[in-house]
């Protein structure tokens, strides 16, 4: 049982490392962006895991009495903000990738060598 509640954290760490590995080994710009999304999902899992309580209900106090144990609504708000922020970044990055493809005709960072040195 002790190990059971650690699973979400293990998943978060795994996703974090997967995302990082993807970015570090990436040879394709779209692949880089998608790896970034994987990295980002780890923060969702982490935030939700932090606020989760076994046997608690959703924090909507319309039909439950104030004393009932609920999961933490703050982390859910944080996660939602995170989704909004990162959707913006990913959209911007993908727009850049589209433009790069338009101008340079390639999506491999090896072929984009303007910045060397």
């Amino acid at each position: 049982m002790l190990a059971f509640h650690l699973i979400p954290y293990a998943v978060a760490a795994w996703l974090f490392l997967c995302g990082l590995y993807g970015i570090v080994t990436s040879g394709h710009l779209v692949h880089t962006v998608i790896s970034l999304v994987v990295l980002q999902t780890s923060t969702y899992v982490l935030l939700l895991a932090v606020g989760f309580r076994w046997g608690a209900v959703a924090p909507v106090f319309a039909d439950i009495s104030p004393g009932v144990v609920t999961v933490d609504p703050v982390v859910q708000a944080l996660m939602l903000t995170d989704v909004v922020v990162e959707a913006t970044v990913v959209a911007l990055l993908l727009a850049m990738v589209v433009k790069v493809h338009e101008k340079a005709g390639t999506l491999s960072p090896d072929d984009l060598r303007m910045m060397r040195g």
Partner: protein
Amino acid sequence: MTTAPALPVAVPMLCAAFLAAVRKWLPRFFIDLVAVLAALFNLVLCLWLLHVSWSKSIVYWFGNWFPRGHMVVGIGFVIDPMGATLAVVAAFLTLLGLIYSSNSMESGKNHYQPLMLIFLAAMTGFCFTADLFNLFVFFELMSTAAFALCGLKTEEPSPLQGAFNFAVTNTVGAFFTLTGIGILYGATGALNMAQMGMLLGSRHDSLALTACLFIITGFLIKAAVFPFHFWLPDAHSVAPTPVCVLFSGLMVELGLFAILRVTSVIFGSSFAGAHDPLRSSFLVLGGTTAVWGGMMSFAEHHLKRVLAFSTISHSGLMLFAMGVGTPKAIAGWLIYVCGHAAVKSGLFFTAGILLHRLRTMSEPALFARGKGLKFTAVLWFLGGCGLAALPPFATSIGEDMVSQAKHGSLELACTAFFLVSGILTGGAVFRVFMRVFCGWGDRGPSDRAAQVDELPEMNEEHRTIPFRIFAPAAACVLAGIGLTFLPDLDSMLLDAAKRVLDRAGYIATVYAAPQNAGMAVGHHGLKIGTMIAHGIIAVACAWLLASWAVFHRSIPRRLRWPSHMEGSMRWVRQLQSGQPADYVAWAMAGVAALGGALFLMK
């Protein structure tokens, strides 16, 4: 007064939304006017907030959600003198940037003005906020606006590549910070920095250390500290001039400011003690960055890349000052940040003048073409002196205060790093001065990075330098000198620094608890003689180094070795590979090293 602290964030955002919505139907002049007025409004308001915050830090709770007992329920701004000063710098640089680019950068095609205003709002909020998650949100808002501004010129692939590298590296950093915030929230159940610090107390177990490591990693990437810095030159060499000014002048330094705030308020007691692992790491990282950035700055031949690497070098010096960590060092840090912002912005604006008149940024291509530009040459030369910390530039006061902050071996190391960084970065600027404005020596070596050319920001060829382009450069250089002559500068700086480091005071401010008033501020006796001597030595050595590179053909072969620093450090420069994958890998190596150091010295 009641809502005034929220206005410097709200007004630019509203103006940005307004401009973004109705931009197409407005005349160009009107768009510029609204943007300039919004920045001017911010400048005036932040100056007033700075004035008010001297006597007592301003606390503002959004929606009047005051703390209940020890529980902070709302999101708050705490405006202390240091945050307000940085907000003033942000407004000042944005104002100059908007004036510089008024009537250029064809407005119909991009969202330049709204993005600049969002950037300004985010930087201001970043300086003011007292909430850790809010700090992350402003950090990301600032970054996103910066990514878009960096890749504004989408006609060519190189700005897109620079912006892409910048965006990927910084976003990875942001996730590190967010993960750290999540861990810390799990440990304390709070998001307000004061409450977090109070609940964390002097805890320094693995969890607190990991959280600290993750949070500052994001800010170290933003602050372009070695080995987290690789994105910065790519972003700077392609961004439009006013955007470079904001990047180098303030955005990079705000990363350091966040580290300062977080380590003092949240982890202030965790790392207190005789051997503070965090400060020792800052000393090592800062010193390495200062030397590395300086060497790379001298090796480059693209004007904006030269300045970008010099920013890295100076960011290292600032981190070094944070590692010294006494109130005097932090006071020196603050004036160094302001002085550096003025000088570096002046240099970037001057580079913008060259781009405007001569339409390239490559040193070999510019050879001897700047001979007719007398005033521009003077500004460039003065900028070089400012980087080498020659009095009366404000950077020299920063150097003096940091060097005097601690006695013993640290004082010596500090003086040495300031000198080396000043000589290398000043030398690079003087070398450009000799080649471009005086036409001495030969063209010098070229390289691939120097050939990254951007389209000039104006459409038609210009034979004159309009006032709106020249004035910001001159204003920045003058500000760099003028800061030195502010009355009571030293005691104001010390006051601001003490209040940033005073953890108990910050917590008391947030909870509106009575404070032990009347902290003795004291004065700092500037060693004017030492300052002048250091400044002259640095400028003279920088000039010598520059002439060595420029006249290397007339020097006996055996004595030519210092000139090899120019451009031939191939194995080092290959690290700057232009691939985000490599940059992130380097940053991960940095995280591993920093984490190892923190855990081993725990």
